[in-house]
């Protein structure tokens, strides 16, 4: 992976007011992110996510033949958006406020996913 270029995509996404944290995560590897720029008040949410990330990839792998490309879940005040990079054990993950306009953020998440796929040579 071209980590520096991918980090630029993440940093661009993080400039959106309602993207509180974002990371490109790959099974068994440390994610690409810039925690210094996170706007999450509740750091526990992110820590829990990081600790369970590999478990998510196990689930994704089980659905790989069914076209799974996104997972959402709601954690009280936050929503977590998990955009899978097709055909890879990699995902773009972000945390947004529960009451944010999720659809508009999804558009920019999709653009970031497309940019990352280009950087990965897909």
């Amino acid at each position, binding site marked *: 992976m071209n980590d520096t270029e991918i980090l630029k995509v993440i940093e661009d996404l993080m400039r959106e007011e309602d993207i509180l944290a974002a990371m490109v995560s790959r099974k068994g590897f440390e994610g690409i992110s810039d925690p210094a720029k996170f706007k999450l008040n509740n750091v526990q949410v992110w820590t829990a996510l990081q600790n369970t990330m590999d478990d998510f990839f196990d689930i994704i792998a089980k659905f790989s033949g069914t076209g799974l490309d996104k997972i959402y879940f709601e954690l009280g005040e936050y929503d977590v958006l998990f955009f899978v990079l097709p055909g890879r054990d990699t995902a773009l993950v972000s945390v947004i406020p529960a*009451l944010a*306009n*999720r*659809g*508009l953020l999804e558009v920019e998440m999709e*653009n970031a996913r497309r940019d990352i796929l280009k950087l990965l040579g897909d």
Partner: protein
Amino acid sequence: MFEAAVEISREWDAYTAGQEVVASILKQLNGEPTFMLVYASTHYKKNGGFQKILDAIYKKIPSTTPITGGTVTGFLCSKGCFTRGVAVFAVRSDEIQVNTSCAHGVRRNPVRTAEKCAENLEKNVDLKSFQNRLLINIEPGPTMPVVPGMKHPLIVAKSGILAKLAPKLLILSTILLNKGMGRENELLDTFGNRIKNGLVVGGSSSDDNKYSDNYQFYFNKVFDDAFVVLDCTTNLNIITKAASAVRSPTEWFNISKASGLRHVIVKIAEKSALDIYTKAYRLKSDIVFEVRNVHRCFVFAPLVTIDKFGVQHARVPGTFYGKTIGVGHQIQTNSIGFASTSAADMIKTVEKVFDEENIRNSKSYVMFSCAVMLETLGDKVYNVFEKIQKQTNGKPYLLVFSGGENYRTSETLTISTSVHLTELSLTMAGIG
């Protein structure tokens, strides 16, 4: 000669974004543009960003070149779909005569504003030399006033004094503070009556669907209360078309009480509007007070009203104050029904607007669609993108996601002069 060009910039810096789009537009066209439509996301609001975008563009083009546009929720072109950035649609043609008009005070007095704007245009239009006319407009969309002490705009108020006062406060805020309803119906009705000839396409300015504020651009000026119209007369081909994403209701009811300048439905068939609404969709009567993100939840269950010309319009519930339902656009007649839509229906609107050969033959396209559609589709908007890419076949196009869209087609011209204000629709002008 006719050339059209579309460009976007994703630069965060407003001035750089303006520089980027104008440089690319000038590169694509073989000379200076005849007019430019400029749309920006709300991200540039801080530090006079919208002004900087326009300043950067005008540094490279004559100050007499008309620019109209404003803030929008997002846009889609051959490069993709974006909710942040600047988008430009530019035309260069010696076969188009352009007039412009701008009038202020839409929220305070929409009728007078429309009259002023129409008067300016009718004074200068040359309908003897040109057969076709297209009026591309932008006007202020709804904003939600924030009650002092509250963090978020007042969208839902279950009971008590706040629910009773909210519709009245909304009127006062709209008229006195320029914060509140868009008043597009009153504006466009008057405008349609005064402008007897010409097709119309446009939309309301918007922000990132937080309904905080929105702006209009007119040449190098930025306004928050202006009706801005670009009037093109030409002998080139011009066509407009609209397609709704909403299925027609099977049953109709009577609105027995409305308030808030007919933006708030209080009673339907003498019963509380909310009770009738929730019953129609078999929902729990209190559900609107329990769910998160009300707008996104109820977009699939729109109200349908009928305008005075008999045309049906979907209205997405915007506020729930007590047992009332508020909508962004004015209710014109007392007929109301309950319909349904889906993301698939929204995506199908693309096929519906492109289903005529003369539309597919146009050389360029400007389209407007409801920002609620973008919010609802989310990343699935790329399904719309793929369909439009196929239909436009490499020709320049720009789809703007605005706070509601409006149109007048040649068909409606023959029966009325109405400009139809819609939600959950895709409206389109094919030019050239």
